């Protein structure tokens, strides 16, 4: 059982606050660190991995400090986001070197390469690898010593769907084995598919934490805004506002459209086509106007 604890951790660079007073505990199983780009996920992972000192607060692994503690790497495996990785070596040479640095031998490297299914390309230079292959070799280098904590920064970036499925399977398996696995992503669907537990970070702050269903509910239950054009906007507006799932409608003359705010996402999505059909109104445009992740996240922060 390995538990990573962050206690009131902040990190600033000059005047910029990258991480703002975050307290969280990451236990065994797969945890997703979700947040839009620039939210501070990488800064957070770098502090968890001991590559950056918190400006204030502490990061500990089972009570031992992570910063300036080389021995902690016997228990941590890290898959960095950056691509650079001794391109002049072959995949096998790279993983063997990583094993040796842990005091292990070729056998550990062979096992790790088999785990990520990279044996077929292990004798090619890393410089010739695709992004997905690099990702898997990085993964193998992080697994050689069978760490109890695995940290992955945006591991699915640049992977094709098949590679993504394979890596998800691998991480799931590691979580089921009782290892503590934490990965970051800015894509909700990705996190949802893999992690039971989600930590949401927005603008350096800890916005939400919990089971993925709870986070999903928070995200879908927020007020949704739609831009709607129809054959009779006013009649449609009158019919929609009669239902409690709609909290506000504005007639936008410039756009020639309605701006609808719905509070009950599920109900509204079935209501709209039904109302239109009952009133003989043709729907011309229905488009969500605030589906960007940033707006979803900023709602979460306010919630």
């Amino acid at each position, binding site marked *: 059982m390995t538990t990573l604890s962050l206690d009131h951790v902040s990190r600033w*660079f000059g005047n910029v606050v*990258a991480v703002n007073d975050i307290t969280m505990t990451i236990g065994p199983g797969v945890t997703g660190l979700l947040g839009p780009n*620039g939210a*501070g996920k*990488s*800064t957070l992972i*770098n*502090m968890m*991995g*001991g*590559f*950056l*000192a918190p400006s204030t607060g502490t990061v500990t692994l089972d009570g031992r400090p992570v910063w*300036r503690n*080389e*021995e*902690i*790497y*016997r228990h*941590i*495996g*890290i898959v*960095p986001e*950056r691509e*650079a*990785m*001794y391109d*002049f*070596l072959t995949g096998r040479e790279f993983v063997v*070197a*990583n094993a*040796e*640095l*842990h*005091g292990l031998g070729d056998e550990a490297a062979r096992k790790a390469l088999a785990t990520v299914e990279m044996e077929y390309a292990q004798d090619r230079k890393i410089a010739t690898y695709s992004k997905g292959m690099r990702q898997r070799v990085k993964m193998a*280098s992080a697994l050689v010593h069978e760490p109890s904590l695995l940290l992955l920064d945006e591991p699915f970036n640049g992977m094709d769907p098949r590679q993504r499925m394979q890596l998800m399977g691998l991480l799931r398996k590691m979580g089921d084995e009782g290892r503590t696995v934490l990965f970051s992503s800015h894509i909700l669907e990705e996190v949802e598919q893999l992690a039971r537990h989600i930590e949401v970070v927005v603008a350096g702050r800890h916005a939400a934490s919990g089971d993925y269903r709870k986070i999903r509910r928070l995200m879908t239950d927020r007020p949704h805004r739609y831009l709607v054009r129809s054959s009779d906007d006013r009649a449609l507006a009158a019919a929609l506002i009669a239902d409690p799932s709609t909290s506000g409608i504005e007639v936008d003359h410039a756009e020639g459209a309605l701006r609808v705010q719905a509070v009950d996402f599920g109900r509204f999505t079935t209501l709209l086509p039904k109302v239109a059909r009952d009133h003989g109104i043709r729907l011309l445009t229905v488009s969500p106007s605030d589906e960007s992740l940033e707006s979803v996240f900023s709602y979460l922060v306010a919630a």
Partner: protein
Amino acid sequence: MYDPTVARLTYRALLGRRRALILGALPLLLIVISVAVRALSGADDQTAADVLGGFALATMVPIIGVIAGTGAIGPEIDDGSVVYLLAKPLKRPAIIFTKLIVAIAVTMVFSAVPTMIAGLILNGNGQQIAVAYTVAALVASIAYSALFLLLGTVSRHAVVFGLVYALVWEALFGSLVPGARTLSVQQWALAVAHKVAGGDLVTSEVGLTTAVVLLVAVTVLATWYAGQKLRSLKLAGEE
């Protein structure tokens, strides 16, 4: 302290095709110059000392030192691949120490060996000049490697700073401005060379004791400090 895996990775990075070409260019130039000088003016002790002192020790050795010293760690820190060394249960000073040994070995091979060959071509080691400058190159290799390894650890512009130091300080001020000469690896190495050669052909601005003390102090302090810097090296901040 010495980690063979770190050493292997460092050697392979340093002796990659492009860097090896750069490392080989200056020694080749030195030998070409020596052959030309010998062919044109015959064997002359003073000329040999001028070529070895003016080009080999004052220019070639520090530049090779910059390439090997900063190249042993700088590129890894720049591109972030050093993370694979840092995320291991390895003492950070051991990483620095290993890289120092590799940088010293590479600098010695690419500077002291060609100095010896050039010396033999120029005057067949007359008056011990070839041996004296080879010893100077060996001694200077150690101090330069330590200095430039530190520079590669603390600065992203290590090569530029290193070249400025090597060319402006060592080659220019080091031979022109009296005060600067005392604080010059080149002069310290020359003091050792003077002891080897005897006579007046190889001279230094500093005494042997001062030179040895300063050489050891600079090497030890630079290595220690680089180890400390690597312990608190921060890899983040791109967000």
